[in-house]
């Protein structure tokens, strides 16, 4: 039975919770009361049929992006595809890697269009789309283990920063990871970009061939996973310091490349209690030097 979507005002009287199938959004808007009201209406209206629209093209969205893969038609689906396109040349990726971020962006866009807002965010299970009017800023907490949230740092994002998307990926989240990172948090221009990049960097934090890491085919867990029979991480033993560093270095190398290419602004990688940060990320100290391509 198709379960009706949920919409409710959370008890703080400020945040709206929208949920439909796997889409689970918390959103909040700041502005004049009438504007906030209009934004809430717009968000609910945008959610109307959004999941159904995506599911119509689910087969395309679950297929690896390549030169011959068909272009989806829906606006959100095309945004997903565009966000993962830069990675399609050198690795396996499907538009699903950006679904959460793209949905958050789409709902946020409808809110911003509906009324003048000072600030707004749409948080789709950790993938967050932001709106900031000039002079405004957000402070966002960062956790290293999404399954056991505890704040390890905060990041302040101001209107002048080129950041409107925050995404976190890792092996404890709702999606599977090919890597071993507990979490990778990415700041990027848009939520869909951040989402795709978080997936890529989290996959890169890895120790290929390590005997203690338990990996199983994705489709043995979820028969219709877009990852097919690719091995996804189920368990990681306690790693030696050297192993941990090796895995983080692999991820940082990938992240550094993305920063250098201007695809992301910053990344924070977490593995077994160690956090490495690249790019400017608020209160988290930048641990890695970045070579930016001045000619890009």
């Amino acid at each position, binding site marked *: 039975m198709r379960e009706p979507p949920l919409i409710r005002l959370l008890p703080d009287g400020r945040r709206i919770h929208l949920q439909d199938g*796997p889409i689970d959004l918390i959103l909040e808007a700041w502005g004049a009361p009438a504007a906030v009201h209009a934004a809430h209406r717009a968000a609910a209206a945008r959610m109307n049929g959004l999941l159904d629209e995506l599911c119509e093209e689910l087969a395309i969205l679950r297929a690896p992006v390549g030169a011959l893969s068909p272009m989806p038609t829906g606006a959100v689906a095309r945004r997903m595809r565009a966000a993962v396109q830069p990675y399609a040349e050198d690795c396996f990726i499907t538009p699903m890697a950006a679904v959460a971020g793209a949905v958050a962006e789409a709902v946020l866009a409808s809110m911003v269009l509906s009324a003048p807002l000072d600030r707004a965010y749409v948080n789709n299970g950790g993938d967050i789309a932001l709106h900031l009017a000039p002079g405004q800023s957000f402070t966002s907490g960062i956790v290293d283990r999404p399954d056991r949230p505890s704040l390890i740092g905060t990041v302040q994002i101001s209107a002048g920063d080129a950041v409107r998307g925050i995404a976190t990926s890792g092996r404890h989240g709702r999606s599977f990871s090919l890597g071993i990172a507990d979490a990778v948090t990415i700041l990027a221009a848009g939520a869909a970009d951040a989402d795709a990049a978080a997936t890529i960097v989290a996959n890169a934090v890895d120790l290929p061939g390590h005997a203690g890491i338990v990996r199983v085919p994705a489709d*043995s867990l979820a028969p219709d996973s877009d990852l097919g029979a690719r091995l996804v991480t189920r368990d990681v033993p306690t790693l030696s310091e050297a192993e941990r560093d090796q895995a983080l270095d692999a991820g940082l190398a990938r992240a550094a490349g993305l920063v250098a290419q201007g695809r992301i602004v910053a990344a924070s990688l977490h593995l077994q209690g160690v956090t490495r940060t690249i790019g400017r990320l608020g209160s988290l100290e930048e641990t890695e030097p970045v070579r930016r391509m001045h000619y890009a």
Partner: protein
Amino acid sequence: MPDTAPIRDGDKIRCDACPVMCFIKPGATGACDRYMNDAGDLVRIDPHIILDRAVDRGEPVVQFLERAEDWDGDPVTAGGRFVTAIGAGTTYPDYKPAPFIVSSQIDGVDMVTVVTEGIFSYCGVKVKIDTDRHLGPERSPVRAKGEMIGHVTTGEYGSQMLSLGGVNHLTGNGKKQGRITCDAILDLCNGKPVELTVDDGATVLVQAGKPPVVNGVLEERMRVGCGSATIGMFAQQWFGKVDEVVVIDDHITGVLSEHQAGKVLGVKETGIHMTGRRSTPGRYFEVAHPGTGWGGTAIQDPLSILGPFDPKVAWAGLSMLMISTTGEQFAYYELDADLKPVARELPAALAESVERVKENCEPALSTVLFMGGAGGSLRAGVTENPVRLTRSVKDALTYVTCGGAPVYVWPGGGITFMVDVTRVPSNAFGYVPTPALVAPIEFTMRLDDYAALGGHIGHMRSLDQVLAGEGGRKLPQLDGNPWPLAPSDTKRSHG
């Protein structure tokens, strides 16, 4: 109750809760992390159930999917939510306040709902099986997996009653019996089918809200009435179309020509001779042994209950319809020159009346009422002075619900209640290895009444706090159940 069986592929289930339609393997969840394949059953895994009144008011739970244009931007307010005890947990056996003591304001009245799951050692189910078939003698043991878990009690109108479970079967006759009893009544309470066998009787497949299956035969209809009542109801329709009608019934078999209804119409005597014990004219007890044949008797050949026709009264060509009380069995005869009944094809004019009998039979169902008693420590979770809770319930100041469903509270001592399990959200019942059943129970009353009976006021939380703190599963209020927080008519919990 599930609407339709989910689509399966081997042991995988296709979830249809949203258009993603995940295939979910046993033990795994779908993409939403909300639905799980639990050993072949698709279940929602958010544990704690909160009823949503929106549906009770005839409004959709959420407006925006189909009717985004109509939505006024105001989400469902907390006043429409009722926190059930399903999944709430319990503080038993400690004398501690119940897991949830929820305050809310309803139409300006401060209300309190004490929410806990009760562990019921004193509990069982009363099962009503709509059938005329003989399930077994009164007091016969009823078995599940060979173990006695209850007994046949009274025959009621068109149905047989079974009493299953109870403290003696749960804890009084050894571990094996207790475990099997617990399993069977738990399954019945959760709407699952259970096969029961009656000593010297039938095998019945019982499932709450579904037709019973007696000895492998699906029971579709309740009898229209006893044999005598059936004569009374249909005499007019038979009059002039047939000379004699016999309605075979395990309780009272009716004979048209002798029955008061036939006499009034002027039906001629036929010289029929019935076996059995005549009660009043045209009404016969004990025409045959009870069984699973015609009309709840053991009869396979209806002529076996007739003696020879009286040659002084009967005549060659006399026509006779014999029919069971559900119309499922019928036969038509005409007397030959020796006044012996010979089976003939049913004339069209009578076929209509047979259909009419069937049509007037209600669908046969098995119905299951859970019955349990709230003991001392459960009441202590509500108040420091447990007897006051009992008095408050008796005085109809406290409204008792089971998973939000209305209950009947027995008069007399204790808080012993009965609830129709089909009115409780699915899978609301659990068990502990004691063995005993775990059932949700909620006590709702006005705040001032709660304070007066020594309630744990210090442990109260507001509805908003509870909704914010718990990852509760929201369900629409079941159709037909009164809203538990409606403040005015607590008396309805008394039947």
